[in-house]
């Protein structure tokens, strides 16, 4: 089994365990306001970080690719215009693709 498979299965197992925990642990354990607040904010912090890192870096180096930045910019515009999830993604990818086809690296 490759390392990637182990990562895939470990991610699946960990995500499932978190889900199951919610259905099985006593309600009180995670009911503390600060704990809830933290759990609410964790995805915000992590997803923002992921978005930034995947947009602006490649490995351990900064990599400001104009087409990719423009794609993310287009996603922001789509979000401001209240486009649905899938459309946001399509707009972002299409913007980057069109710019690259036009010669923007």
């Amino acid at each position, binding site marked *: 089994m490759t*390392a*990637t*498979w182990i990562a*895939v*299965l470990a*991610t*699946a*197992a960990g*995500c499932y365990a*978190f*889900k*199951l*925990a*919610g*259905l*099985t642990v006593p309600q009180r354990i*995670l009911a503390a*306001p*600060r704990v*809830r*607040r933290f*759990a609410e*904010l*964790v*995805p*915000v*912090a*992590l*997803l*923002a*970080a*992921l*978005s*930034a*890192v*995947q*947009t602006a870096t490649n*490995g*351990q*180096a*900064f990599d400001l*690719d104009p087409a*990719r930045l423009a*794609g*993310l910019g287009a*996603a*922001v515009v789509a*979000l401001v215009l*209240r*486009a*649905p*999830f*899938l459309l*946001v*993604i399509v707009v*972002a*990818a299409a*913007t*980057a693709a069109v710019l*690259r086809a036009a010669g923007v690296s």
Partner: protein
Amino acid sequence: MPPGAIRDRHQQVDNSPRPMEPMDGGRWTVDGGRRSANGGPRTADRPPRPVRDGVGLGLAVGVSGVAFGAAAVSSGLTVWQASALSLLAFTGASQFALAGVIASGGSLLAGTAGAILLGSRNTLYGLRLAEILRPRGLFRLPAALGVIDETTAVTLAQPDPAAAKKAFTATFWCLYLTWNLATLGGALGAGRIGSPQSFGLDVVGPAAFLALIWPRLKAGRTERLVALAGAALALATTSVLPVGVPVILAATAALAGALASPPAQGSPAAASSRRASFGLEEAPAAGKTGPGGDAT
């Protein structure tokens, strides 16, 4: 969600999970032009349509599995690995996260840890769903797989536990099937195209993450600060830490946010109003829930 609810600072008073906006909007009643914690029951504006809501949302969100499948394969995962994630992990943000770390050649350990950490919010959804669905015994094992943003949103929007159970089942089944078929389609399709970059697939992950947190960024200042701090922290440490670790480090921004802005709501009144408000919300209109989904 009702227009205006997003702008409401009072929404921060709610300390419950906030998977999608529609379910939250209904927790508040208009109070002198402002909204405040729901003080009492109000009747649903229309009859519950749990199955229709669930199927509609499941189809709408599930289709974006195409984006995951394509992104996963262009990241270096095999079609089977992409499908295994959708079948077994079934929580989009975590799936995209792992694919992203693999794409950038990062540490698998850090990628896995980040992906699992992203799934921690589902525990909170499970806590709320358990109050309503009251799953027992072994039934909890299959039900747990379906504890994600979308199912929680549709389930909590129903007026009574019977409708809630139907909503959970309908959303789960429809989204699970659609998401997995879409993943397979996207994964197979991505293998046949040339350079993923020429199709802009490298923007899919960042755009999806942004879309997922967008409703929360609009929900409050703390959320925006935490997002900025998390992104800044990750970027600042990218050149000195192994790939994948900076993103985990961003969780400290969430910790700081939680400590700095204790939700005002620890009060019993707020807790009871939340409980009392269950069942009084309007169900989200199918398909109009917009970004904010996860199973994506």
